[in-house]
């Protein structure tokens, strides 16, 4: 997986910027992630009991009332922390930050103490409570590049590491450095509003690395000191006139 003889001497450091202004909360990212990463469908019973697995999820928060009502859709995946609290607590080292800055989960090594899940301040880790099956004909569309997870292990967003690896192998075969924007995870690829930007922080002169250093970006729970590699472009409130123009604003329901 980690090819240290790669022609790229400087290894990329993958990161994501999520633009909350662009996000419409359509959940295309969550669906794409599910399809790409063979995420189990746990069913309505489990969903009612907090038993769903969503590597990428949309967290919806409501602010204000009536005319000041605002809804914020925040896509939350594994924040790929530089200083990940989930890693040191695993007794079998089933999770670690790889050479490209991705916090990876080693399914074969995981014994399922679930300590990492508790120590993740973003609750981005999910446990396989059962051996999940895919109702026919969904099993034929499983992604062959991603292993299926058995019961009793943790799983989480991997920044679509299978795609990164494929792109790196391709670049290696062609004996060239990895091109800008050659790979992106399924969520970023499928976002219709292009709210998810994926790239290499260390890419010299790249558009992504320039954006990454924008001081307007925020991280989730900065006070925990995890140094996430997912940053959010803060939502700027739409003018009131825009809100007033929307008939039957959902704020009315909340207020009732």
């Amino acid at each position, binding site marked *: 997986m980690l090819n240290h003889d790669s022609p790229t001497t400087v290894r990329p450091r993958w990161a994501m910027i999520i633009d909350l202004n662009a996000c419409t909360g359509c959940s295309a990212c969550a669906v794409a992630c599910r399809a790409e990463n063979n995420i189990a469908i746990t069913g309505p019973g*489990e969903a009612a*009991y*907090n*038993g769903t697995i969503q590597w990428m999820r949309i*967290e*919806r*928060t409501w602010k204000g009332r009536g005319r000041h009502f605002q809804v914020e859709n925040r896509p*939350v995946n594994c924040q790929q922390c530089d200083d990940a*609290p989930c890693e*040191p*607590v*695993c*007794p*079998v*080292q089933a999770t670690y930050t790889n050479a490209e800055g991705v916090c990876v989960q080693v399914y074969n*090594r*995981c*014994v*399922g*103490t*679930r*300590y990492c*899940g*508790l*120590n993740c*301040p*973003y*609750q981005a*880790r*999910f*446990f*396989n*409570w*059962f*051996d999940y099956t895919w109702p026919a004909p969904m099993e034929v569309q499983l992604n062959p590049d991603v292993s299926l997870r*058995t*019961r*009793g*292990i*943790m799983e989480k967003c991997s920044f679509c590491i299978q795609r990164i690896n494929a792109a790196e192998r391709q670049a290696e075969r062609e004996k060239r450095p990895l091109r800008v924007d050659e790979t992106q995870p399924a969520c970023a690829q499928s976002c219709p509003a292009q709210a998810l930007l994926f790239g290499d922080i260390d890419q010299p002169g790249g558009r992504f690395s320039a954006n990454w250093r924008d001081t307007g970006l925020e991280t*989730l*729970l900065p006070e*925990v000191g995890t140094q996430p590699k997912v940053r959010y472009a803060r939502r700027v409130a739409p003018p009131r006139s825009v809100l007033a123009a929307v008939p039957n604003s959902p704020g009315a329901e909340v207020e009732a």
Partner: protein
Amino acid sequence: MSAAISHPAPAVVDEKNAAAALLRPMRYTSLAYRRMTLLLLMVIGWGMFCFIYQAMVGLGVTGLRRPVFWGFFVTDFVFWIGISHAGTLISAILRLTNATWRYPVTRAAEAITVFALMIGGLFPIIHLGRPWLFYWLAPYPSERLIWPNFRSPLEWDFFAISTYLTASSLYLFLPLLPDLALARDRSRGWRHRLYRFLAMSWQGTQIQWRRLELAIQLMAAVVIGIAVSVHTIVSWDFAMSIVPSWHSTIFGPYFVAGAIFSGIAALIVIMAILRRVYHLEDYLQPKHFSNLGKLLLTMTLLWGYFVTAEMITTWYGNLPDEMGTFWSKVSGHYAGLFWVMVLCNFIIPFPLLAIRRLRTIRGTVIASSTILVGMWLERFLIVVPGAANQRLSFNNWYGYYPHWTEISLSLATLCAMALLYMLFTKLFPIISIWELGAAKHNAPVSE
């Protein structure tokens, strides 16, 4: 312990009769005992079925869901490790302070330690997602060049608990040696062969006695160091995480105090049962319950102090992350359990133990029983509300309720503990015979 010294050792006991009386439970087995064993075995069998079912189907059969990844099993783990502090720690302290009333108490306490540790040590395995791979937590040279992660508090648990189990087993075994030799000399058949092996060819030469007494004394000192570290490390499973309300510096001493608290309570309850079932009224006298009751009173006050210190710091700091847990306990979803815990751990036992007239066998047993319930609730209220109240408010989830597998396994392990203890009383004298004899002869020395 000054009160203890004023009470000399039970001088009424003639040790020749004592040997016969204390070996009696090993010789005769009543019908009630057999029925009880059968009942316990049935519950344990049901628990084994539940465990296999849970391992085959997945941990989804429990009530655990994100973010409450830890629930009943971790509560049971902390509780049983706490109970295990009965023995070794209490008996070691009583030995080191040379409390002469300790003789009928120590063996019962040391046996609790060993069995509670065995039961407690099961829970980290039961709660694993893939329990059949539990040995991956052990540091053994693997051909895949993989090692466990020594930075994980769960790995420290592995070292702490295995050390404690070794030490407390030895600490049970060494004072048992002379009694094993007695049992060897007074038995025939398979029992004789068993005791001959276990007695390690003990003869009772004076050099053996001197060395044994020295070894017990020295080990008592070391075992206290281990016992304190074990529950501190168990508390660090929580304190080393960044979960709000778990990440607390007070957890080490708080857990150790709680462990000794529940340990003494367990000891009193088990002593009362032994006294009743095996007719040990001459040996386990009201003054033993009263003395242990005084210790328990101290621990009640200490527990109250720790809980107050923990809660008031959280409340005064008023950090939003921690207040979620705080209010869920004090007036929210878990308030019922929280106030029952306060009732069981402080309000009921305090008067029962503080008023001398109430500090009888009955009084201390009632206080100890409520304390055992209260301490289990305390562990539950540390584990679950903390996990349920996470930093990101949209992940709070109060939906955790134990399912039948968790309840069954908790009950089955309780029965396993009872069965192990019952078998122990059938195989080994539950009261140290030689120490009673030595107490009689050496009473002037220690007074």
